[in-house]
């Protein structure tokens, strides 16, 4: 029956006959026409100040976007002034400019329906503008003023500090937030990647307006930034406008953040909080974004716990055992290091069982090669979804900014598919052995059960941690 149906398949399409139910052709047997696709490419020009600018013109929608990336993330926060990078970014947006007061700027931006944001993460800070193309001149002028001439109004600094203090005051409300924050803090130890981007309790008191001015001057020099623009615009006029605004002064980009030192050894940390579920996290420092093993590591992680229902961890913990709603692993990769983290939440009675499975799966993928089926699926998934990197002009441009910001080769996207196709089972095994370290994993458990401390002892000496 199946074979007969497979033969009839194409004629049936034309006849509109053969229904899904009667045929029962297994969907895995379907064949697809080839996908014809030439990825759109952004043009790269170098501005007079030396900064690269990516341009992708696409006038099909009356939209304009402008992006700028600076080495101005929380990794540059001075000790004791944690949150300075995030506060500076926010105040560039909300603190007024040399040309205009903060409230008037908000009125103009919002009346246009434009969207301008400046926000920091660990390594970088991104300025981003999106507006209707009829408003480009006005909106771009405002965005450039925010970048080049922020006024840092003391009143708006106060307002933001109060918001940050309140956010920190309530940051132990949601258990998931507590675990991910304390996990990061412990894994990175003394490195500035350890502290939350928003800041630490008390750190707002140590930051003054002068700190913002100085941080902005040091980190947002246009010649050290990377820019991009997408949508409906006049290319030559735009390049001219940017050169006029950003000037021709060349100065070196700020240095990258300091390197991360890995520490060895298992640690088990217990955070006491009254909950119905135990929240579990286990992991360690991971690879840098420019690590040559990046793609094999991502494929390995896809199979281990990144691929959701296609991954070993979720399949076992959720599908086979019914222990948790969410269970999985992540490798994040920043400029100087990344983080590997396996996580899961389960009722306290099954916390030890679930944690055991998490560590077992980390060991198993180091012990022997993954199956042909697993690697084929992971490679296919990466290769076939490649086209989703190009679904809008602004996405293409932002992606190129990210590639250059992280110091990756500028032909990264052109070699990507070949690199994915070349990953073997052996590569995955080597990636797991080299970059996955269950023995040295930091384990964070949040929960309330009386038996928890004793039952966790099997994973290593347990220390009780009081979250900040």
């Amino acid at each position, binding site marked *: 029956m199946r074979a007969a149906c497979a033969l009839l398949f194409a004629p049936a399409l034309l006849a509109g006959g053969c229904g*899904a139910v009667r045929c029962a052709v297994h*969907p895995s047997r379907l064949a697809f026409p080839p996908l014809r*696709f030439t990825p759109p490419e952004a043009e790269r020009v170098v501005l007079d100040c030396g900064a690269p600018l990516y341009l992708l013109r696409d006038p099909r929608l009356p939209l304009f976007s402008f992006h700028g990336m600076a080495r101005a993330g929380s990794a540059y926060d001075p000790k004791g002034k944690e949150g300075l990078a995030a506060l500076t970014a926010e105040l560039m947006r909300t603190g007024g400019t040399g040309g205009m007061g903060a409230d008037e700027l908000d009125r103009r931006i919002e009346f246009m329906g434009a969207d301008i944001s400046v926000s920091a993460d660990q390594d970088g800070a991104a300025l981003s503008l999106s507006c209707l193309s009829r408003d480009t001149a006005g909106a771009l002028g405002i965005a450039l003023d925010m970048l080049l001439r922020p006024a840092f109004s003391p009143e708006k600094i106060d307002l933001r500090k109060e918001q940050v203090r309140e956010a920190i005051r309530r940051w132990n409300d949601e258990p998931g937030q507590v675990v991910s924050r304390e996990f990061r803090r412990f894994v990175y130890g003394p490195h500035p990647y350890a502290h939350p981007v928003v800041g630490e309790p008390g750190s707002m008191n140590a930051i003054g307006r002068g700190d913002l001015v100085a941080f902005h001057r040091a980190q947002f020099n246009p010649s050290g930034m990377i820019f991009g623009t997408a949508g409906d615009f006049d290319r030559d006029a735009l390049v001219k406008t940017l050169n006029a605004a950003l000037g021709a002064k060349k100065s070196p980009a700020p240095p990258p953040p300091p390197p991360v030192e890995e520490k060895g050894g298992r640690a088990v940390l217990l955070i006491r909080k009254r909950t119905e*579920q135990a929240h579990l996290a286990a992991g360690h420092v991971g690879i840098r974004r420019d690590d040559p093993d990046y793609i094999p590591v991502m494929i390995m992680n896809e199979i281990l716990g990144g691929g959701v229902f296609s991954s070993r961890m979720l399949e076992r913990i959720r599908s086979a055992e*019914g*222990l948790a*709603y969410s269970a999985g692993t992540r490798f994040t990769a920043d400029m100087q290091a990344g983080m590997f983290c396996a996580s899961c939440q389960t009722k306290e009675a099954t916390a030890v069982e679930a944690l055991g499975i998490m560590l077992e799966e980390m060991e198993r993928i180091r012990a022997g090669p993954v199956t042909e089926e697993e690697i084929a699926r992971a490679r296919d*998934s990466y290769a076939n979804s490649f086209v989703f990197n190009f*679904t809008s002009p602004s996405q293409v441009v932002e992606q190129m900014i990210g590639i250059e910001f992280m110091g990756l080769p500028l032909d990264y996207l052109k070699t990507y598919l070949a690199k994915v196709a070349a990953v073997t089972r052996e590569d995955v095994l080597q990636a797991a052995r080299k970059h996955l370290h269950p023995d040295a994993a930091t384990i964070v458990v949040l929960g309330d059960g009386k038996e928890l401390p004793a039952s966790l002892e099997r994973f290593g000496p347990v220390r009780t941690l009081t979250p900040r």
Partner: protein
Amino acid sequence: MARARTFRCVLIPGALALALLPAPLLAGTETPLRVDVAEHRLANGLTLLMIEHRQAPVVSCSVFYRVGSANEAPGCTGISHLLEHMMFKGTRTVGTRDWKAEKPLLDRIEALHERLGEPEGGNGDAGEMPRIRRELADAERRADGLVVRNELWKLYMSSGAEDLNAGTGRDRTQYFCSLPANRIELWMALESDRMRNAVFREFYREREVILEERRLTVDDSPEGAFWEQLFATSLIAHPYRWPVIGWKSDIEHLTLPMVDAWYRRYYAPNNAIVVIAGDIAPRQVIALTERYFGPIPAQPPPPRVVTREPPQRGPREARLALDASPRIALAFHKPAVESDDDIALNVLENILSSGRTSRLYRRLVQEKRVAVSVSASCAPAKYPFLFVIHAIPRRPHTVDDVARALREELDTLMKDPVSDWELAKARNQIEADFVRGLESASELASVVGTYAAIDRWDYVNRYIPRVKAVTPLDLSRVAHDYLTEDTCTTVVIR
């Protein structure tokens, strides 16, 4: 527009697409830009909506069923959401190595579960229970050997699927994913198969998964618990009052036969909308849809939701004693999606809380500094629902300080008409958001499908003209009619 607060997914949702609302594309010109939707109806009643969109060779595919927690009743709350999870377990061909061998084992497992579930002192003698448990464990082990776990998911992922997930809401359940444009037939094959031939294997384990989901997102989450309380207090009769995920005790008592009956009743082609957006050839999409979905028989129309929320006669308040920081919400009754007043309330939502120049942000956050954030939401719903204002107080200010400040602003709104500037700003923002939304095929599919499920898909093209017709007087009137103290429910964590 508003966040879909209790939209539940088989996976933890990322940014859910409901934020966007449509508008004319060439803003500033007289030609209103529309979302061009081609509609096709199958003989079995299935609605097919197609949107051509050629940014990249990708296609976003969704099927929406007109069913959600509003169709449920006490005793079976959460059943729509549990069914959504079960739909990922496969069919008679997907997810099994040998359906003929698996079927009797699944029947046996179900029969044994029924025996275990019998009330104590029932027909069986107590000594039988350990034997039943052993037999059950044995049958489950043998059935496990025949399962190809998560095969549906794996087939999609191998094909490069993105945004693969499903979500259950109050009025609709949707299954969605984006694929490279050459793989559209895979979607047709898998979705038509699970519309007709779903097999609910591993049912009781999945019920445990949902209890874990509830612990994670409601019981241990002050924010989740807060919203659950808000709906349960502000509504006393209408089914919107219970959570989409269901009450814990109801989830614990949902059985496989109940879920199977729910599936047969609601997952019928005449209760479904298929939305395909992206790089498509509509004639080919119609041919594929006819071929794959056409043979599925229509079912009797599902029962209507008849319960109406009675008028609220006096303010209500709920206080939650949780280990969490203070927050406050005010909920007011508002009309269903098709009402013009609902459109005016949408504009009011924008004026009250969209952006730093909005009224509530300016007054409560920037000037009085009693709160650190404040937001209004006016989620579109098939039946009358709620307009909610939610605020986070800033210490040392209390929820009472915030409540007073909110009341003052609402009183002002009723007394003085909003300025032309504020109204023009709201229109501009709604327009610009619409144009941004046109960049994404998946966003378009989600919005068009949602309105098709709760109203009519052309809501998206009627929305902007209706927004433009709203006057300052309309805004004062709806504020006066709906945002009154007597019909307000206040929920707080102190």
